[in-house]
């Protein structure tokens, strides 16, 4: 496996620590006085997102994680997974439903996802931050409970996700959604 010295470690690089894949968040070279130098490295777990801090001897070598990041376009869905296509190589991959995480809420044909492969297996599938989706189901605006001061109402979008939209949004309209929070951003005309 390829190795990288703590001296060359930069934010964004993928390393393997204790057999787990991490993204480097920051790397600080520390050398108090005439003492030993060491590197204080913050790393974020590729799958669960937990950020931890580790201290390494300067010049110590870390294993690079076998990680590949690819932009993949969603082609169609099958019963047990989604077929994606690598936008550059046109290679097709089936990603099982259980590997999709929260992206399962935002599956739309032709949308380009950021897919991370670890040891050849897809581990994270990130939709674009903002996507435009059609409202397939929501109660008419005039029946919104304005008396209690609520200005939002539940709605279902074309991908099946349930979101909250302002009461003036009607079925069939298209809205912009922030996929990180699942929140309504604006109406798309």
């Amino acid at each position: 496996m390829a190795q990288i010295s703590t001296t060359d470690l930069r934010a964004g690089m993928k390393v393997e620590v204790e057999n787990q894949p991490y993204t480097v968040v920051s790397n600080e070279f520390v050398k108090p006085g005439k003492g030993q130098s060491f590197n204080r490295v913050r790393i974020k777990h590729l799958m669960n997102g937990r950020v931890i801090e580790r201290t390494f001897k300067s010049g110590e070598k870390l294993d690079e994680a076998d990680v590949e990041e690819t932009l993949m376009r969603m082609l169609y869905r099958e019963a047990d997974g989604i077929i994606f296509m690598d936008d550059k190589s046109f290679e097709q991959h089936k990603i099982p439903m259980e590997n999709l995480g929260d992206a399962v809420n935002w599956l739309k044909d032709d949308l380009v996802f950021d897919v991370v492969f670890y040891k050849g297996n897809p581990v994270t599938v990130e939709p674009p931050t903002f996507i435009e989706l059609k409202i397939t189901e929501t109660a008419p605006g005039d029946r919104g409970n304005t008396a209690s001061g609520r200005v939002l109402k539940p709605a279902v979008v074309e991908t099946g996700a349930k979101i909250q939209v302002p009461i003036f949004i009607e079925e069939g309209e298209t809205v912009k959604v922030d996929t990180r929070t699942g929140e309504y951003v604006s109406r798309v005309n």
Partner: protein
Amino acid sequence: MIPKLDILRDRGTMLSRSRQFFVDRSVLEVDCPILSASASVDAHIDLIPATPIDGKRFLHSSPEYSMKRLLSSGIGDIFQLSHVFRNGESGSKHNPEFTMAEWYRVGFTFPEIIEETIDYCRLFLGDLPSESITYRQAFLKYAGIDYLGISEIELLKFLERKEITVYPEIAKEGKEALLNLVLGLIIEPHLGKHSLCALTHYPASQAALAKALRIHDEDVAERFEIYHQGVELANGYHELCDATEQRFRLIEANKMRLQMGKEELPIDENFLTALENGLPECCGVAVGFDRLMMLRHKTSQIADVIPFVWSNA
């Protein structure tokens, strides 16, 4: 932050004002060689070798040995403002080639050199108050441990409680390495928050080229560092004049280098001969010019205050 060119103009001004600072105090400028056949021997400072046609040389990590040769020949108070080199030291606060102001004062006491170093820092940072804390006090105050009595196991447990994960080989490197981690990660950030803080009286085992002495139950070195906002700015000593003790320390440093799998460095016999001939009682200090420029311009990146950083030089 102001544009880079303006910082570089200010840098030029501060180089001039530094020289003026020393001229005003009748300290003579010297320009000792940057390349030499022998070298400063430090366990944890690695040199950049050079290969001229007639044999191996080293870029100096400090002009200390050469300057002490001049001191021993009776030159008097001297300073050198030059680039120095440390292999592999790259980071937001480190560049393998950096600028250092180093000076020696014959007959100065330890408190006097600390005061003068703080005055030099004020040239860059304005009229900041100064304070002083010993290495031992700092460990008690900011980490709650007495470095002298604490065992390696207790230090490891302490780091674990602070959620600092150590690298596995640190056990082999001993107590010094653990204390070094505590200093770098826990204590340094507290030093000189609103002042210029002198950290003084290091353990004798970290004396380097400073005089060692015993105070009560503690063997200490008359060595100090200056910190502002947690950034280390200077390292100074009441200089060791004893040639025998100096030779012993150089050999010990080389032994440590070998243990760590590093190359042994040639001992500078000219330097030791100078000590044998008599180094006058003196104090000296080396100040990181670029670090002062970083604090002056409120940047955390050394790249912002030097013309071209290592990766782009």
